[in-house]
C-alpha cells in the first residue's frame, strides 16, 4: 500500500522556538492516523505545514509521490488536501449552504464550475454531516458542535483525498463524540485518508489505525494505538516523570 502523504524530515522554526523538529511519517490509503501530544507539541503547526498555510524551514512534503513543499495553499487544495480549523472561522456573512458551496466550487481538481450543481453537492455534504436543516441559516449563528460539522462539510465538499482534522471533537459531549467518530469512519470508507488531531484519547484510540505522538515538536512515537499508549515516553510526556 503506497503512502498518499509523506512527511520527510520536516522542521519549522519560529523566532526563538522550534515548533516542529525533524518529523517524518507517512499516511497510507484509507488510513486514519491520529496525532496526539500535550498542548504546544506542534500538532496544529504540523497540519498548517501540510495544508500550505506555513512552509517548512527545512524538509519535504510529498503528496501522491509529488513534492508539494513549495506549492501554495490553494494548489494543495486542488490536488486534494482538505483541512478543518481548530478555531473555527466560517465565512460569517454567508449562509451555511454557501459556506459549503465554496468548497464545492473550488475544491479538488478545478471544482465544480456550475453554481447549481455546486449547490446540490453542498446540500449532499450538509446532509451527510447532519446539518441538512440549517442550510439557509447564517453561518455565524451556528453553535459550537454544529460549527464543527460545518467545518467538516466544507472540507468534504472539496472531495479531498486527504482530510486533515484539527481538534474536531473539542468541546463535544460523549454522544456528539460518538457521532463524529461514525462520520469520520464513513468518510474513510468512501476512500479518504484522514489525519486526526485530538486531545480526547479514548475517542482517538477507537478511531485511529495508527497513532503519532508529538512532544515539544519531536515525534516520540508512531505505531498501533495500544503499543503507543503504553509507551513509557508517551506516558511521561503527558503525566511527567514518575518519582521513584
Amino acid at each position, binding site marked *: 500500500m503506497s503512502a498518499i502523504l509523506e512527511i520527510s524530515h520536516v522542521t519549522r522554526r519560529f523566532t526563538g522556538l522550534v515548533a516542529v523538529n525533524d518529523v517524518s511519517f507517512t499516511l497510507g490509503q484509507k488510513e486514519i492516523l491520529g496525532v496526539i501530544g500535550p498542548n504546544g507539541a506542534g500538532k496544529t503547526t504540523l497540519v498548517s505545514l501540510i495544508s500550505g498555510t506555513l512552509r517548512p524551514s527545512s524538509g519535504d512534503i510529498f503528496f501522491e509521490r509529488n513534492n508539494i513543499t513549495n506549492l501554495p495553499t*490553494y494548489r494543495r*487544495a486542488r490536488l486534494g488536501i*482538505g483541512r478543518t480549523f481548530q478555531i473555527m472561522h466560517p*465565512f460569517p456573512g*454567508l449562509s451555511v449552504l454557501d459556506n459549503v458551496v*465554496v468548497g464545492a466550487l473550488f475544491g*479538488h481538481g478545478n471544482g465544480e464550475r456550475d453554481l447549481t450543481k455546486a449547490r446540490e453537492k453542498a446540500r449532499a455534504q450538509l446532509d451527510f454531516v447532519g446539518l441538512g436543516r440549517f442550510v439557509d441559516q447564517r453561518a455565524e449563528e451556528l453553535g459550537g458542535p454544529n460549527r464543527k460539522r460545518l467545518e467538516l462539510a466544507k472540507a468534504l465538499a472539496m472531495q479531498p483525498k486527504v482530510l486533515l482534522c484539527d481538534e474536531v471533537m473539542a468541546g463535544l459531549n460523549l454522544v456528539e463524540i460518538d457521532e463524529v467518530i461514525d462520520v469520520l469512519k464513513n468518510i474513510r470508507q468512501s476512500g479518504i485518508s484522514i489525519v486526526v488531531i485530538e486531545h480526547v484519547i479514548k475517542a482517538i484510540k477507537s478511531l485511529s489505525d495508527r497513532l503519532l505522538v508529538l512532544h515539544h515538536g519531536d515525534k516520540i512515537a508512531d505505531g498501533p494505538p495500544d503499543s503507543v499508549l503504553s509507551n513509557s515516553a508517551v506516558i511521561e510526556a503527558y503525566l511527567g516523570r514518575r518519582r521513584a
Partner: protein
Amino acid sequence: MRVLRIGLILAVTVVLAALPLFGSDVLIQFGINTLLLAVLAQGWNIIGGYTGYASFGNSVFYGLGSYGVGIAMVQWNLPFAAGLILGGVLAIAFAFLLGIPVLRLKGHYFAIATLALAQVMSAIVSNVSIAGQNIGLVLPPLNNDYLFYELSLGLLIIATLTVAWLTRSRFGFGLIAIRENEEGAAVMGVNTTLYKVLAFALSGLFTALAGGIHAYWITFIDPESAFDISLNVKMIIMTVFGGPGTLIGPVFGAFVLSAISEVLSSEVTNVAGLFFGVVVVAAVVLMPRGIADVMRHFRSSGWRYFIENLRAHRI
C-alpha cells in the same frame, strides 16, 4: 417580490435614460456627474465591498483613464474611443503590476499602501511632459451633453450588470470567500492572489472609463484634479453609505449623497462641506453597514437597529 424589484429597477433605468429629453441643462449636467460617481462607487464596490480590500488607490485608475483619453486625443490625435481603450489598458496594467505586491498586505496596510501609491502617481504625472506636466491638457471640445449623459448611464448599467454577474458566478463566490476569511478561502482552493488582482483590475477598469468620459466632457485635465484623492474617499463614502457588497447600494448611495451635496451647495456654499462631514460621522456611528442594511433590518428591529449597532461597537 423579486419581480417587483426588477420591475422597479427597469422603470428607474428607463426614466433615467429619458431624462435628457425633458430635463434642464443644469439637471443633465448634475445627472452626468452623479452617474459617473455611481460608476466609481460601483467600481470600488468590486474591490472594497465584495473582495474586502478597501482601496484608497482607485483615484489612480481614474487619473489613468483621464490621461489615457487626454494623451490619445491631444498628443496623438486619436479618436475618443481609442483614448478610452488606452485608459483601460493603462488601468489594467497598473492593477496587475502594482496590485500583486500591494494586495499581499492586509486590512489597513493595504489601504495605506494604495493611498501612498495615489500620492506617488500624482506627483509623477506632474513631472511628465507628455502629460503636460503641471499645467495639464486641454482636450478638443464636444458640446453634446446628451451624448455624455447616455454614455455615463450606459457605463453605469454595464458596471451594475457586472456586479450582478459577480453575485451568481464562481468568481464572485471566490471574492466573497476572500473577504470573509482569506486563509479559509485559500485552504478551500481559491487562488486568492489571482482573484484579488482580477477584482482590482475590474474595479480599475470601470473607474478608468469613468475618468475618461469625465475628462472628455469637461475638456480639461490636470494632475491635481485627475488623481484627486478626495474623489476616492467620495467613492468609499457613497458605497459604504449605500451598502457595500450589495448590488444597488453604491448606486443608491451615490445618488442620495450627490443630491444632498448639490442641494446644500446651492443653498449655503460653505456649510455644504461641513454638513457632508457631519453626515459621514453620523452615518458611521449609526449605520456602519450602510443604508441597504438598515432597510433590510428595519422591518424586524425598527429603531432598535441603531441602538444595537451602538451597543455592539462602543466600549
